[in-house]
């Protein structure tokens, strides 16, 4: 079979976006009108979800298939929680649900009615770093920073739940969180430091 559209002129490709050019320079109201004008298939029925995220009570209408991770990242712009595998294997999406660490990629958002969610954005009050964040920074417990939110959320419950007594017990608890840059030693240093400081976290 021949490939589609053997190329003759680049105009054919380029001219398609002539109309959109103006769109992104246009005010928001115009953008909205444009969106309504489009023929978009009806979305599937929305479900109601009441959930508290970082202390904020929210009443939402969401697609029933939405994972908690995608709700946070795509719908609510809490992008501090990361997507690494969508299979519950890497820990990048770790958050706290009612104080317990949980992988948000394998949680349906709807199964969290009335739950209290804490993400990395909600760990501190916004003026000072949380002691675990400060310890990660001080110990250089990350490189690329992508697994860091999940590591920190696990690290906090590691200490809270009394699993930070030895390096070995910290490592065992933290095995749920992969760091491909290999900052493991510094992460354990950071957790040990916070645990030993006795800081209330």
């Amino acid at each position: 079979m021949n490939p589609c559209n053997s190329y003759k002129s680049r105009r054919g490709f380029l001219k398609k976006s002539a109309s959109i050019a103006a769109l992104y320079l246009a005010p928001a109201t115009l953008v909205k009108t444009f969106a309504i004008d489009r023929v978009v298939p009806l979305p599937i029925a929305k479900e109601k979800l009441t959930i508290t995220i970082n202390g904020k009570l929210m009443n939402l209408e969401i697609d029933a298939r939405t994972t908690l991770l995608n709700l946070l990242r795509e719908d609510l712009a809490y992008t501090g929680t990361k997507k690494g595998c969508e299979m519950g294997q890497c820990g990048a999406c770790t958050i706290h649900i009612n104080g317990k660490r949980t992988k948000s990629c394998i949680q349906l958002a709807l199964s969290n009615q009335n739950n209290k969610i804490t993400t990395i954005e909600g760990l501190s009050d916004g003026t000072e770093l949380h002691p675990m964040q400060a310890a990660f920074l001080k110990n250089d417990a990350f490189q690329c920073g992508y697994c860091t939110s999940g590591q920190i959320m696990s690290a906090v419950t590691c200490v809270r739940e009394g699993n930070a007594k030895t390096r070995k017990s910290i490592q065992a608890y933290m095995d749920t969180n992969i760091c491909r840059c290999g900052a493991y030693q510094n992460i354990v240093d950071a957790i040990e430091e916070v645990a030993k400081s006795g800081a209330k976290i």
Partner: protein
Amino acid sequence: MKSNNNTLLIEDERVDGSDKVTGKAKYAAEHSLPNMAYAVFVTSTIAKGNIKTLDTSKALASPGVLDVIYYANCPAVPGYASNAADRPKNVSEWRGYKVLYDNKVRFFGQPIALVVADSFENANAAVRLVKAEYEIEKFETNFDKARLDPTLLKSPVNYKRGTEKKFKEAASFVEAEYNIPIEVHNAMELFATIAFWEGEDRVTLYDKTQGPKSTQSTVVRTFGLTDKNVRVITENVGGAFGSGLRTWANVPAACIAAKKLNRPVKLVLTRPQMFTLVGYRPQSWQKVGIGADASGNFMGISHEAISNCARYEDFREGIVEASKFLYACENVDTKHSILPLDMSSPIWMRGPGEATGCFALESAIDELAYKLNMDPVQLRIKNFTAINPDNKLPFSDINIKDCYAYGMEKIGWKNRPMVPGSLKENGMLIGYGMSVGVFGAGKGTASVRIVLSNDGKLILECAVSDMGPGTMTSMTKIAAEAMQMPMQKIKFKLGDSDLPPGPSQGGSGTTSTVGSAVDMACKTVQLKLKELAIQFAPAFTGMTADALEVKNEMVVAKANAAIKIEVPSLLKLANQDKIDLTITSSGKTAEQLKYTSNSFSAHFVKLAVNPKDGTIKVLNVVTTGDAGKIVSPKTARSQMLGGVVGGIGMALTEKVEMDHTTGQIINASFGGYHVPLHSQIPNTEVYFVNKPDPHVNDIGSKGIGEIALIGFAGAIANAVYNATGKRVRDLPITPDKLGYKIVKA
């Protein structure tokens, strides 16, 4: 947000660290644009053949689906034209397979269609509704089988110095074969592209790439655009390890969809797609022979390698390079062939070919040391060379013996048993091993814009990226040192192709290349400040620039520190808001080219093998680097720690498993492909020689990203031999290879 009890940034911390620990740092997929659509690839379920029919009707009828783009409805892409006459002058042909272009399937998991919907959920749900019927062709994915057929091998590159196979005449020699499976970078951040056409011929991309300029250039040449109309933004890169050194199918696919639908499109790969769509370390077979005279002088080295590539394009990396120059030896012959298979393309993975080659070379040297009854470190010292025996140029600097001394002391090398398998601690077999890594220290071209404002702030800009090593921090440090001013007043901007051109972050070249440009930019600004002082500040009238220095944000007369002027005052006096310059630092000077420059590493390992089941526990690691001046000690140490973790993965856990009856990877997830976890990581000590290399560049710094990993797997294999007397030459080293049977519980 500030650190607790600290109003100023602690110099030792990453300048972008606060954003990373608070979740504020944004990665490619984390941008949101009005009316953005979501795209998901549909991938092939055969390894080779043609798509007979592709039924998209059910997917198109699925809620929220906007389009299913595939070969029958894909808009023409200028760079997809194979015939040069059909391509405009500024367009070059897309390298690799052309995604969504034709009905050919070249590997299992190749994208065959792109579902675009108004939400991620709707796109994902429709993916499974696309049905393909195929004509399957005969394929080959079995490297171990295919490499035995010489007619399937391609493009051998031969090298010979002195007499070939001389090693076999030596008093002692070893020769053996080594196998390394496919390993996958598996950075934590999934590859993602958001494409947004701002005009007919103007596109902006948020993209995961190690090279904003390189991706920009690829998009320009593929779609027939101009540099100024293509912007690639990649503020933060969530790891890449080489996989981001190329523009993959996700970029044109997102551009095509965004154009076809007239709206921004976000395309994020899945973890399984990270195994097939963004490269991997190629599978390799190697045969290394080394011979030495009775006192250990190398008489000959022979290094042969075969590594796989895709059927649709060649790929070769420096597997046999280190054997040519790391040790003094007159007779060296190497050969490297590639083996095309019906798989996707490999790409450089951290430590690229050198990591593969040094595993074999450093294992062979260890084996030879036992034959000679010599200490393996002493054998390496015996064959030390300060002159590269390949190009005959002196190394610009080489302090590997300092690394040996430190590593031996700190790991407790004196406790290493000369007889393998003879040392036990707490019922465990204990072994010590070491190995060496080497990588070229290049210096390329980079432009830097430097802006010094009359409020005392300094901004530097370069279109490089930072995938984790801490480039923003090290560049800020280089500027702070050159300008003799506090880091807090300096901002280094990167990750945007609109900034002055810089290199892709790779090959351990960023600090040398961009750092040299930053240093040069600062020195240019300092000269400018001195000239302004002489011209506008009466106290300096009649002085020459040589007699002045710039430090602590002041221009000062060297002979009399009382003659000084603060930089903001000077700029105001000269009636200038700012000094704004763009400089370009090009490759090495003629003087620098009189030397050959490399970074070196030596890794020392102590490990325990459980005699009951053959499980291996790495107990201690001392990893040492000889890479010139260390610009940023804290982040440099982290890179070395990361190399150890990557090295443990390469040595002990990582392997892609294929089903050759279907040609598919069967462990394409973190559940099946095992990367090292917290509890597998030993206490690791990092040491740097930390001495400026006098000839590599003006800042005396060389890269460490690659040498952190190169050779490490050899140290593990050598320690396993020391512990057990079993020489494992096939990675990863698992209990079955030590002769233990896997018993089901």
